[in-house]
């Protein structure tokens, strides 16, 4: 991590610790065992919850990217029907609140489905992954469309003049060039996704936020409120801030005028 980044992280940690210290001094009553020790005790569980968030975000990103690429290419199709459907899909999933889509998937998808007489359960986390993949699909479609459209028309003309078909042109000429330009906005979509992942705690998935609330309920100490939530914030910060910095550096390198 670069120097300013390290400094920022240290300052952030300092503030979180200060928050941990504040309630200890403010709370009346018996001396509580150091909030620190309690945090350490529960840390493994919280980390496991965070890993669930990570796993869900990666899975959603993968699914959403594949679907979004298809829809994105569909937006520039030569067939008007495909084009309009793709545009509608993109707009719909970009304009819908993430939480509503999550609710939609969790409440309206079946609890299990039968395949060849076997009943396969459909757990909440799987529905959560799908629910998050939908807005990712909408956003990735936009990124793909933007990347393709940023390639100068001269490339299309030259490929045409060389008798390349439309799909050959996309595959061999346009996409290889557009991929680099799509990378920073695509990473940005992941950052937004990662930040939205804790929403799954509202629809019954056991992630870091669920764990945090369980811990607080178990300990029952108001002095722990700020440290525990602060720790969750810290975990996300430690993961997302480097990604954001990397994205910015890539943006500068692949800048489109």
């Amino acid at each position, binding site marked *: 991590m670069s120097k300013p980044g390290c400094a920022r992280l240290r300052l952030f940690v300092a503030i979180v610790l200060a928050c941990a210290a504040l309630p200890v001094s403010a709370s009346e009553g018996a001396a509580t065992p150091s909030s620190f020790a309690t945090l350490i005790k529960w840390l493994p569980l919280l980390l496991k919850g965070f890993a669930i968030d990570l796993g869900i975000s990666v899975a959603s990103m993968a699914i959403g990217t594949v679907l979004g690429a298809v829809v994105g290419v569909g937006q520039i199709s030569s067939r008007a029907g495909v084009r309009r459907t793709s545009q509608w899909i993109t707009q719909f999933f970009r304009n819908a609140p993430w939480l509503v889509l999550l609710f939609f998937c969790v409440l309206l998808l079946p609890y299990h489905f039968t395949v060849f007489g076997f009943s396969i359960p459909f757990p909440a986390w799987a529905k959560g992954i799908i629910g998050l993949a939908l807005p990712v699909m909408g956003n990735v479609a936009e990124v793909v469309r933007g990347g393709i459209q940023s390639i100068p028309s*001269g*490339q299309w*003309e*030259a*490929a*045409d*003049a*060389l*008798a*390349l*078909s*439309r799909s*050959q042109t996309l595959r*061999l*000429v346009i996409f*290889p*060039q557009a991929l680099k330009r799509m990378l920073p906005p695509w990473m940005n979509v992941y950052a937004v996704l990662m930040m939205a992942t804790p929403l799954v705690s509202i629809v019954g998935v056991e992630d870091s936020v669920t764990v945090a609330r369980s811990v607080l309920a178990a300990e029952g100490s108001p002095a722990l409120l700020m440290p525990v939530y602060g720790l969750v914030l810290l975990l996300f910060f430690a993961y997302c801030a480097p990604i954001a910095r990397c994205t910015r550096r890539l943006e500068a390198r692949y800048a489109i005028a």
Partner: protein
Amino acid sequence: MQNANPIVDIRNVEKSFGANRVLRDVSLQVRRGEAVALIGPSGSGKSTLLRCINGLVQVDKGEVFAAGHAVHKLSTDAERIALRKDVSMVFQQYNLFPHLTVLQNLMLAPLEVLRQDRAEVEARAHQLLGKVRLQGKENAFPGQLSGGQQQRVAIARALAMRPSVMLFDEVTAALDPETVKEVLHTIRELVEEGMTSILVTHEMRFAREVAHHIHFTDRGVIVEHGDPATFFDNPQDPRTREFLSHVL
């Protein structure tokens, strides 16, 4: 090698972009092996006419025949692709593929479209690079080459498809004067070898020396045409005379 039937035959072509009538009743014939120059002020429709020949632009009225294809009747992609195997085009902005090396630029279309054998395609690519005097640049990327070098690669890339007709759209307009010469030299060699060429150009001296026939367009019509000597020394139409007085 001269054939009585023109290899490119344009009859009464009209084309408008919105309210703008770019081509109004243009007719033109080019015989096999001929080099034809299209000259005229900007906006007179020269580039559009060129694009009508290889189907990048669809004509509103009239007929276009090129290398045995009825271009004005093309409807399917397969037909268009068949046309472009016979008629190749070189652009003002070269439009090389920046993510591929020079060699890969040359080999892409023959491999993917003509589906030729890889060794054969590579050998021909090397030969073409020699022809445009760029041996040694096989593994360079377009971004590493000068404008003139890129344009010569573009010419080689178009030649790799073994076309019967080559279209050149103001290919030296974006180059600085020193590099213009090397590109014109390449084109002159092609013409002397018998390649049917249609050139849209501002290079009057070149047109005079290399072309077999000159056509002057203004505001969407061919005002005057003739062989270079007659055309440049004794222009008939006042519009031609005015244009030539400005550019010569």
